[in-house]
């Protein structure tokens, strides 16, 4: 029996696609391509390298730092990893989980020694689930888990 050419093509394409996806994943495991965001401390340490580049900064929205400009969608806040802070400005809608004391990932162009202008804001959820009636415990737990994950 002869293998029809289109079957052989399927065989090759499958090997290339699956092999390629796996190889790309394994290869990027050894680089920092799979690290989704920098912490403020890391960004400050690499501030010259990052200058003018698109980066993601992640951490916790510092409690008490969130300022809303009334009548607009403009907000300002500090992203903290417990050691250093990045001041962020943003204009637009924020995700539902975005709030003070919770995790956040902001994306934008890094300019050394300036406020970070975010193009987009993603909320980072912690692994804690707590019923509404126990919200206070939940907030404390979530903070602890988040800061732990930034180390």
């Amino acid at each position, binding site marked *: 029996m002869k293998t029809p050419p289109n079957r052989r093509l399927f065989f090759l394409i499958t090997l290339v696609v699956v092999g390629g996806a796996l190889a790309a*994943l394994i290869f990027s*495991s050894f680089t920092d391509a799979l690290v989704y965001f920098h*912490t403020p401390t890391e960004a400050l340490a690499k501030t010259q390298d990052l200058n003018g580049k698109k980066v993601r900064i992640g951490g916790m929205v510092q409690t008490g730092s969130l300022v809303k400009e009334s009548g607009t969608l403009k907000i300002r806040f500090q992203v903290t990893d417990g050691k250093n802070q990045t001041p962020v400005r943003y204009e637009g809608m924020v995700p*539902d989980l975005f709030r003070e004391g919770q995790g956040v990932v902001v994306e934008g162009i890094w300019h050394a020694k300036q406020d970070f202008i975010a193009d987009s804001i*993603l909320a980072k959820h912690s*692994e804690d*689930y707590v*019923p*509404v009636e126990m919200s206070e415990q939940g907030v404390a*737990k979530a903070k602890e888990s988040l800061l732990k994950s930034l180390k």
Partner: protein
Amino acid sequence: MNILKKIQLPLGLLTLISLAVGAWYVYQAPADFQQGGAVRILYVHVPSAKMALLSYLFLTVASVLYLWKRWEGADIVAEAATAVGAAFTALTLASGAIWGKPMWGTWWAWDARLTSMLVLLIIYKGLMVLRHSLDDPVKGARATAILAIIGGVDLPIIHYSVVWWRTLHQPPSLTAAENSSVHISGPLLPPLLILSGAFILLGLYMVTVKARQIEARRRLDALEAARMHPDE
């Protein structure tokens, strides 16, 4: 494969009962302090993700057994586990996206957990195509088993992705190492545990049904081949 015939009915009933109990607990579950009602999405997402990985583990074991002992039954189970695993992986990605949109603010992010899970779906689909891309079914089965074992490297990458790299996806809430109530409090926990168990039963039931279907298909193919070429 007589055993499949025997276990199918009790397994199916057990699955239905556990799914019903799980659904009742989901209905009773309170809102989460941050996610509100959206926490209910995770009762599908998390068990489904567990089954996506567990199916692959099953597939790897079946593939090793097939290559080693040449049991056709192991190959049938491997083919069934591939179809079941692909279904759970697709559901995991879809339910995750629907949760991500309101919670994170995005359907998709190229972080390590999401990317490695997408690679898992590509592997499952690739295994399905590969099996039928060779004319000789035995060669197809062997090639598929080999690729399935190689693809197994994705499992630890998925599992540890949230630990090894900083990701948008949160770390696991349920871990064997610590008490599960550390991260999930009170009445939010039982639905997750019950549905995780129910999904394991459902996965086994789906493998059973699919394996019987594959076995019937192969027997039919063999009979038809024998009728077409009676002297072979």
